């Protein structure tokens, strides 16, 4: 498939060049209404986040924008139990939930794809199969781990997400950034989450893979998943999200929807100039 790859790249290059954002990013989606799936209120994380709140509805793509160090990752980590929430409540489908560990979050269907792939997102010394099936390993045990089932499901994810890995038994360290990211996403999709939080999903990812990831996010949302996208790249936030929450120094500075979503409006809030 070398030719196909080449063709894709040419097309992509032209797209980037022409800044045809409408083509590069998936078509803008309409804003959703309906009951919130996940609601966070008055969330604080000692030293990082103060009194932050957010809401996501099924099928919605919410952007979490802000400068580096504004506490977005910390908020997300606290939501999924990887960090201690010193204050605040998390409500899922209107019911207050207690999340004290990532396992709790997993059980409730909230998944977090970390920004630090090598450090917390993946086991780079383990193979693709092991990584893809790790979070949902329980599903492969009845009661013993079925390597066959693991391989089969991983193969499916590979096809579904177009993960370019020659050997699924090779360590993920040998994959490119984009494909590593896809493995990380597959790991969490495999847990069948209802809420998916993606932290810097295109950091260190190539243009081609970036676009695939944007398409994937949209597809997941279309299937009803509630998505939160944390990103420091403004065009990405603007291009992908239909609602944007802007943070600054651990606090939520404002929320933008529809036409309000622009790099300008985000930047002004991230810098603390407008609210």
């Amino acid at each position, binding site marked *: 498939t070398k030719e196909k790859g080449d063709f894709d790249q040419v097309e992509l290059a032209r797209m980037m060049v022409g800044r045809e954002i409408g083509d590069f990013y998936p078509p803008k989606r309409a804003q959703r209404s309906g009951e919130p799936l996940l609601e966070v209120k008055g969330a604080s994380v000692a030293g990082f986040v103060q009194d932050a709140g957010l809401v996501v509805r099924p099928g919605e793509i919410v952007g979490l924008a802000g400068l580096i160090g504004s506490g977005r990752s910390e908020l997300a980590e606290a939501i999924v139990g990887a960090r201690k929430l010193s204050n605040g409540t998390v409500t899922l489908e209107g019911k207050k939930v207690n999340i004290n*560990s*990532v396992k709790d979050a997993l059980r409730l269907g909230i998944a977090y794809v970390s920004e630090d792939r090598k*450090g917390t997102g993946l086991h780079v*010394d383990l193979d693709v199969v092991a990584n893809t099936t790790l979070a949902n390993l329980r599903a492969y*045990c009845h009661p013993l781990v079925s390597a066959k089932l693991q391989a089969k499901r991983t193969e499916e994810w590979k096809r579904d997400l177009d993960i370019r890995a020659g050997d699924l038994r090779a360590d993920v360290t040998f994959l490119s950034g984009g494909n590593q990211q896809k493995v990380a996403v597959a790991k969490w999709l495999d847990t069948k989450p209802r809420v998916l939080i993606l932290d810097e999903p295109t950091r260190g990812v190539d243009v081609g893979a970036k676009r695939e990831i944007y398409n994937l996010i949209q597809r997941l949302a279309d299937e009803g998943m509630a998505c939160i996208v944390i990103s420091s790249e403004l065009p990405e936030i603007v291009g992908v999200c239909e609602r944007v929450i802007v943070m600054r120094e651990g606090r939520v500075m404002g929320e933008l929807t529809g036409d309000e979503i622009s790099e300008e409006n985000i930047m002004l809030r991230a810098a603390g100039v407008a609210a």
Partner: protein
Amino acid sequence: MKKFFQDYGVLVALLLLVVIDVIANGWGVLSAGNIILLFNQNAYVGMVAVGMTFVIMTAGIDLSVGSMVALCGAVAVLALNKEAGNHASDSTAIFIACLASLGTGAVAGALNGVAIAYGKVAPFIVTLAGLAGFRSIALVLGGSGEIRSQVTSFGDLGFGGIKVGLFHNASGLPITIYWSLIAFIGTALIASFILNYTRFGRYMIAVGSNERAANYSAINTQTVKVAAYTLIGVMVGLAAFFNAARMNSVGTGSVGSFYELDAIAAVVIGGTSLRGGKGRIWGTVVGVVLLTLISNMMTTLNIDTNWQGLVRAAVILIAVLLQRGSKANE
């Protein structure tokens, strides 16, 4: 080729040693009797080494196993004598002694595990403290000397086993596969099973490979670590039980000394990396056999046993150098 050596170098080394052994001592060394003897000898360290594979796989280490052997043995023999004193039948007393040994190992291991997982102290330090502490308790229990069993059949257990009528030793007697050897083989099989077919096995690998990432993957890393150290404790308890039976006593000051070094050496020779995240039980078993074979050969070749340490050092280094760069090693 390089990859082959990386993965199976330890087997090649074992084969080489066997060939040398055959050339030097004749085909007799391959007799069932000799082979079973070899395994019989290394069963105790073997069980400990299998457990060590687990903790090393989680990027940990356990320096306290030797002292734990003394502690478990001391508790076992004390329990045995107490039960026998209470007019329990021999087999009941022995059964309770076995439970006491395993239980003591489990508790001691769990203590290590808790200090490591929840106290967040480095495994090296925690188990260094265990090395001093467990031996100390054993010495106190034993009044600094040895604790002798008052149950003769306990001692017999140490030499009991399955008699293999087919094979005979040099004196023409049928070979016995000791219970301890059976326990070792059983331990290795169960360990392989845990490693390959259970979630716990996968979790240990994930924790050893990258603890933070394991945490972020909804794995309770603390539980996994406590379980790994508890497991090695149980295996140490098993080894201690059979060792005590074999001696029909426990020399609290000396028993188990250097087991930690032998076990770690076997694990490392077997191709498990001290960095964690990879491990293989069969490698450890081969490592244990290799180390025993060396000391066995040095005696049969009438080489001054003083050289043994140097040969052992060479084998450790060569094994690790051969396997360097393999997935399983650093």
